[in-house]
């Protein structure tokens, strides 16, 4: 075993060692501070918000585990950890360069591999950290849609694919100075904190995975009627939702990438109101249908509101945030039934929460943007939507971006999962699925001291 280790490390050192040769820019931060004595508060803001975004990893892990069965909890913990682990390493090596490196014809970035050379700079590292936690979020969304049947190995490879290719390239188009940001409509395609870049991408890659995998054993009865498969812990699901809501306060307000944009206060308020409206509408709609106060759907509704407001949060006012969140709450309810009735099995509702509402979020910018705020700045060009006399141009830019986002995510996701399936089969065996993935894949039951049902 030891030989293996040393070998492994040797390679590492060599590969990456190259890095430290090239010369660096401002690694200590002295010059940057001299140039801009007010930067500390921006660094503090961005880092703290970034920490909150990182913490969303815990939120996703808890929500997904809570909404799935005890016999797959270990597997979900493994997947929700490994995706951020691989995201960190892969995005540092390739993703960041593809997304934020020097633009090549609006298609990809081409510099900053392994954060080496002139990227050894406090400003670049700061931007890397911020973009990384977002990449990690996009990656982890998928684990919910493919839960309880996807092999760990396949998920391992998938997380490399997403953070090395799918996410950074699309991200470049919108945030890296790529072609979508330069669309000749409105202010170009805009996505303030990533309803599209992060959530639509995650949601539709998830849809692709769910389709390639097919539904879980027992999700549909003989005559294709969907059956509920209750999750094993509502407390964990609720805890996870609170953690995500908390983390979203880093996700959206932090996306100003500057504390000198006092608009952060408006962003925080809008983020919160959309979450509340989404939760309220979702629980009320299900109540009208079943006369029960459905907690699971309320939690989904809350997340739906957060996803939807992510794109518009900086360009709208409070009442619009409520409206956007309310629609999101309705979309997630309808969406969950919609997919199930079409034989698509999405154990935690990731496709409806992140996929559909990511799209709604992008569109809502074209409707509700009120023209009081610009592109992460208080000056022109301002983003203006239909209801505020902005006409259709911004809406068009948003629709184009949404279409591209959905197609890109679904297509690459589908190809990726299909290829893996061809090579080694991405789904566990029926017996393993029946027994749960924890023991066959990991050897470790999640709750060995508890008497559990495995159905």
């Amino acid at each position: 075993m030891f030989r293996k280790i040393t070998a492994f490390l040797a390679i590492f050192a060599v590969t990456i060692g190259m890095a430290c040769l090239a010369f660096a820019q401002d690694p200590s931060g002295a010059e940057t501070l001299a140039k801009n004595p007010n930067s500390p508060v921006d660094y503090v803001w961005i880092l703290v918000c970034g920490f909150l975004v990182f913490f969303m990893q815990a939120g996703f892990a808890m929500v997904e585990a809570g909404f799935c069965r005890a016999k797959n909890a270990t597997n979900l913990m493994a997947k929700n950890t490994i995706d951020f682990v691989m995201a960190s390493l892969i995005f540092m090596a390739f993703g960041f360069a593809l997304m934020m490196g020097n633009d090549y014809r609006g298609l990809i970035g081409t510099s900053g591999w392994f954060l080496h050379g002139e990227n050894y700079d406090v400003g670049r590292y700061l931007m890397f950290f911020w973009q990384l936690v977002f990449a990690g979020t996009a990656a982890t969304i998928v684990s919910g849609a493919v839960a309880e049947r996807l092999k760990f190995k396949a998920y391992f490879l998938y997380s490399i694919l997403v953070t090395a290719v799918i996410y950074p390239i699309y991200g470049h188009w919108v945030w890296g100075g790529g072609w979508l940001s330069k669309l000749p409509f409105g202010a170009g395609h805009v996505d303030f904190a990533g309803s599209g870049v992060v959530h639509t991408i995650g949601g539709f890659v998830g849809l692709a995975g769910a389709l390639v995998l097919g539904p879980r054993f027992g999700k549909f009865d003989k005559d294709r009627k969907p059956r509920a498969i209750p999750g094993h812990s509502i407390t964990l699901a609720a805890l996870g939702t609170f953690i995500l809501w908390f983390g979203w306060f880093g996700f959206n307000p932090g996306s100003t990438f500057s504390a000198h944009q006092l608009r952060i206060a408006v962003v925080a308020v809008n983020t919160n109101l959309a979450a509340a409206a989404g939760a309220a509408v979702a629980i009320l709609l299900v109540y009208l249908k079943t006369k029960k106060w459905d907690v699971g759907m309320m939690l989904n509704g809350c997340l739906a509101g957060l996803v939807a407001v992510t794109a518009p949060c900086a360009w709208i006012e409070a009442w619009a945030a409520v409206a956007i969140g309310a629609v999101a709450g309705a979309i997630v309810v309808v969406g969950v039934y919609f997919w199930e009735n079409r034989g698509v099995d999405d154990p935690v509702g990731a496709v409806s929460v992140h996929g559909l509402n990511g799209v709604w979020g992008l569109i809502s910018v074209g409707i509700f943007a009120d023209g009081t705020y610009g592109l992460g700045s208080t000056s022109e060009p301002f983003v203006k939507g239909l209801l505020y006399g902005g006409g259709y141009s911004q809406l068009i830019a948003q629709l184009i971006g949404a279409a591209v986002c959905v197609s890109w995510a679904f297509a690459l996701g589908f190809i990726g999962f299909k290829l893996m399936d061809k090579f080694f089969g991405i789904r566990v065996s029926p017996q393993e699925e029946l027994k749960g993935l924890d023991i066959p894949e990991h050897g470790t039951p999640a709750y060995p001291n508890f008497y559990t049902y495995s159905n």
Partner: protein
Amino acid sequence: MKKIEAVVRVEKLEELTEALDKFGYPGMMVTHIEGHGRQKGLTEQFRGREYKVNFLPKIKIEIVVKDADADKLVKAITGIARTGEIGDGKIFIYPVEDTVRIRTGEKGDGAI
């Protein structure tokens, strides 16, 4: 010796234990089982979708008793466990060949 096996509603356990104590039968084995019978199961729901649960939590009480005491205990249990609603449960009586008290090695009625 006979074994009295009673399937009863969960909420009856406490009362039954006290009663049996009084009858001088502290000894019993209690198992949490899932019952299935005439009684309808529950309808539950998860993320907007309803589903039926066909098993209901029940308590199974097993007591080994002297032949002589069987009837009065069965009566006692029936009395306490009855609500008149479907789902009250059942009592089964089985023959027992022998009993051993592990602590002392005693056998027969004395060991009960």
